[in-house]
């Protein structure tokens, strides 16, 4: 029962928002493969929901809705065969912008946790993997800072699948079964410290694979759906 109490306490704190960066990311990843934790989180969301009434409404800037509509328009991909073709030029501009934000965030993350846990590093090496079905249909870009084991996943042209989630896996012989790196978002870049548990040479030689899973991720902890995209890391020379 202690275990159950621990799960419930952790879920409650996750919903309250009191966990630190590491715990928050870990719970977020764990809930994808631990149904009990996920259910406990949903229960706490429901119990505490009336507290949203304590927040005062604030009118957002008047231009915001037009920006939202523009994003929705640019996210409406047109499927062609198995691949997904989108307006790449527009997306590339968007990634450049997100990449700038992402590197700023990465820097602040290093300041926030890296210095204590890893000490300052003389140089950082970035690796990138293009996850694709074939050479003409990149779906996600994975960037890994190998020194800090921080991974950023950016959607390129992944098409949303109603009722399904994309889940990222680390596949390498020494690991045995594929290891889940969590559900990834087809709409926005996300940054995860989920590679922290793996050795440098394992990450560098691994295949990153994306499978299509039931919404919220694989219920078993192993891939249950088809692998739709895959790729390996290459150095960026950065």
């Amino acid at each position, binding site marked *: 029962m202690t275990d159950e109490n621990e799960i419930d306490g952790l879920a409650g704190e996750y919903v309250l*928002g009191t966990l630190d960066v590491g715990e928050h990311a870990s719970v977020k990843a764990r809930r994808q493969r631990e149904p009990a934790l996920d259910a406990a989180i949903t229960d706490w969301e429901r119990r505490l929901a009336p507290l949203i009434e304590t927040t*005062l409404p604030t009118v957002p800037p008047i231009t915001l809705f037009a920006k*939202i509509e523009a994003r929705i328009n640019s996210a409406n991909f047109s499927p062609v065969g198995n691949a997904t073709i989108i307006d790449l030029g527009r997306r590339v501009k968007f990634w450049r912008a997100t990449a700038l934000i992402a590197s700023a965030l990465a820097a602040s993350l290093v300041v926030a946790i890296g210095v204590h846990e890893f000490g300052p590093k003389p140089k950082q090496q970035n690796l990138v993997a293009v996850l694709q079905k074939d050479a003409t249909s990149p779906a996600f870009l994975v960037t890994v800072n190998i020194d800090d084991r921080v991974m950023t996943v950016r959607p390129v042209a992944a098409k949303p699948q109603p009722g399904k989630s994309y889940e990222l896996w680390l596949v390498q012989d020494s690991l045995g079964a594929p290891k889940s790196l969590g559900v990834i978002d087809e709409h926005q870049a996300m*940054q995860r410290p989920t590679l922290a548990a793996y050795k440098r040479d394992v990450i560098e030689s691994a295949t990153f694979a994306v499978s299509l899973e039931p919404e919220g991720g694989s219920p078993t902890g192993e891939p249950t759906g088809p692998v739709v995209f895959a790729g390996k890391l290459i150095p960026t020379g950065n």
Partner: protein
Amino acid sequence: MIRRANLGVDGNLMTPDGLSHLMRRVAQRDRSAFAKVYQATSAKLYGIVLRILRRRDIADEVLQEVYVKIWERAAHFDSERASPISWMATIARNRALDEVRRKQPVSIEDHPEVQDCASDDETALAAVMRSEDGRRLAECLKRLEPDRRQMVVFAYCEGLSRDELAKKYGQPVNTIKTWLRRSLAQLKGCLGP
């Protein structure tokens, strides 16, 4: 009570049922329904993300992502399981909490334009008590010791980490964790599953 409902674009009251109906149209990719949902809910959701993020530039960005997500996931909204506004608020809070955990905290002193919320216990509880579920939660919150009740409300509203709460309340982090866990267990015992 007029304050209980959200004001729609033309000044009509937006009831939870009205909002659920609009969400079903959004799920059918109805852009005008989406615009109405935005009009009725954006001030609430902006308040939520701004309170946690404390910076308007970041809150603007996050709110855009939240509404794109609401548009994409509208088909998954289930009015049996949650009211439309709590479903949307959960998306907004989760996104804001992810964001605030990725960067260094911003001091409240840097951004005095963001109003404090729920600092007054009575006001906070009165606000919560507008619905049936809210009345029950308020009753259960009243059974906590005042400082712990305030901490729970404050943590939810501001997304403060244990470290930040420890500084605010002048207590060791472990004490804060113990208080939070006990308060949560007490609340659950009072509210039921």
